[in-house]
């Protein structure tokens, strides 16, 4: 078995992986990206719509353009890139500087990489029909939205003609427009929650532009069809309960599912990384390091983001922190972060009171004129006006030494949306 050594290995060559690796390389450490696809860029390569990069590059780019800009920087760097290579196992038992990755690829066979640190950047995957338990027959024609996106945008197949989209996540909305633009009839988007789970701008430009109805508070209670999908049954919900007498049928030959994303953490678990029950991503400290010393996490494998720009930002930070860890730097003190009322989660779970910290959080509620309240040990230290908030849009804030003045080693910062 071929054996290689690096200071850091980044697993995953999407936006997060490339951004993290570039920082590690910039800091002068040897670094490798291991990517299972045959190209860098990850899911961005099939996201051919525009709207990426407004924060990162101050212009509106398509997914492939965003990815290639990063890939070009990687090509100019000293980063070693292993494409078509799958990490099958991580062993972090041999001490903090001797992490072992077993990888497989058609070009290199089985590879063993020994690395001091690891950055997890594997992204997330789609929930499927089994995960959300949609009852009914099991005919052909039920796809996850991301799979349909790959078929249409990369491989050049159109998976159906009359389409219903279940769930109003962003990929589903983007696919409503894509399917309309390739000549399909998108008959409806059916959402179980009383509010859409995608970005408002996508509701406007992907549904309103094409007069596609959005059924909110509606559950899909049946899928009909023997060989091929023939239709679905939609049952409205009132006060949280199904109202069967108001159920109706929508005829269609294709169903796309956009019912959420789950961080892909099988490898992390292998390595002994502890996961957060709400985010399904690793629990990380102020430097985005997991409970396993020297293993960091960033991007959608840590928690599902709404914008790739935040992914890149977070990943750059993880890369910088991995480099700092390699130099032997450790945070002196950390302050715990608690999700208070109406906050589903806040990431990272700890803050370093000696510097500015970027915190990402998700709301559980839809509200206008919301206020974000920061409490340090039950003392309100700051309130921030947030305007309109909704679960689909990530809230970001910066917390620095000034905010955390007077902290103790047992301090906790509670974030609440009011």
């Amino acid at each position, binding site marked *: 078995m071929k054996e290689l050594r690096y200071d850091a290995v980044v697993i995953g060559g999407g936006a997060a992986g490339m951004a993290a690796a570039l920082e590690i390389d910039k800091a002068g450490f040897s670094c490798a990206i291991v990517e299972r696809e045959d190209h860098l860029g990850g899911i961005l390569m099939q996201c051919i719509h525009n709207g990426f990069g407004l924060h990162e590059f101050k212009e509106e780019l398509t997914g492939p353009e965003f990815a290639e800009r990063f890939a070009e920087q990687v090509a100019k760097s000293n980063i070693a890139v292993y494409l078509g290579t799958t990490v099958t196992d991580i062993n972090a038992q041999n001490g903090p500087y001797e992490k072992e990755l077993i990888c497989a690829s058609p070009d290199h066979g089985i590879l063993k990489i020994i690395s001091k640190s690891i950055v997890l950047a594997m992204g997330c995957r789609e929930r499927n029909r089994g995960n959300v338990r949609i009852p009914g027959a099991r005919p052909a024609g039920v796809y996850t939205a991301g799979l349909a996106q790959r078929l*249409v945008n990369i*491989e050049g197949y159109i998976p159906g003609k009359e389409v219903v989209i279940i769930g109003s996540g962003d990929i589903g909305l983007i696919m409503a427009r894509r399917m309309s633009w390739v000549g399909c009839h998108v008959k409806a988007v059916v959402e179980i929650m009383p509010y859409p789970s995608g970005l408002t701008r996508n509701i406007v*430009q992907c549904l309103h532009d094409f007069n596609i109805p959005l059924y909110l508070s509606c559950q899909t209670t049946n899928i009909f069809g023997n060989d091929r999908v023939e239709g679905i049954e939609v049952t409205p919900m009132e006060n949280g309960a199904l109202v069967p007498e108001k159920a109706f049928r929508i005829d269609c030959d294709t169903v796309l599912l956009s019912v959420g994303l789950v961080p892909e953490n099988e490898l992390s678990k292998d390595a002994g990384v502890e996961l957060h029950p709400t985010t399904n991503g690793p629990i990380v400290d102020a430097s985005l390091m997991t409970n396993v010393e020297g293993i960091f996490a960033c991007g959608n494998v840590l928690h599902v983001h709404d914008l790739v720009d935040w992914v890149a930002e977070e990943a750059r930070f993880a890369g910088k922190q991995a480099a700092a860890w390699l130099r032997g730097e450790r945070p002196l003190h950390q302050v715990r972060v608690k999700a208070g009322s109406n906050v589903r989660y806040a990431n990272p779970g700890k803050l370093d009171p000696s510097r500015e910290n970027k915190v990402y959080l998700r709301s559980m509620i839809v509200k206008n004129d919301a206020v974000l309240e920061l409490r340090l040990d039950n003392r309100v230290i700051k309130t921030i006006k947030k305007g309109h908030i909704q679960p689909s849009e990530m809230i970001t804030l910066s917390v620095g030494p000034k905010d955390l003045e007077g902290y103790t080693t047992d301090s906790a910062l509670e974030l609440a949306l009011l």
Partner: protein
Amino acid sequence: MRRELTCIVCPIGCSLTVTEKEQGEFEVTGNRCPRGAAYAVEEITAPKRVVTATCRLGPAGACSESESKDPIYQRMRRHGLCDPRRLPVKTSGPCPKEYIDELLNTIYHTQVTPPVQRGAVIIKNWKNLGLDVVAARALD
């Protein structure tokens, strides 16, 4: 006349209110930046969208001769599991909404043979609207 819009210029998605004061004079409120104001006026007078789509890739394909004879490669190709078979493209600026269907049709009937540079012009100044269709990725 008053209209409520959601701005689509960036992911913030400001709620905009547009009021027509006199013929051709508009007042926009709710925007966080000047681009929002410009979008609102354009949206109710002459709505436009950036169009993204894909072109067919030409016969040259993206594989060498020896690869193309490899049975595994051929099987993968048949199932669409290898190199991309479509080239993503976008318009160089927003396209008037009423032209979008015709533009898409033109793009779908355009074939591109690699190699292609990112940003290469695939269709120049379409219908003299001042819009180019450009490649959104490089392919060799």
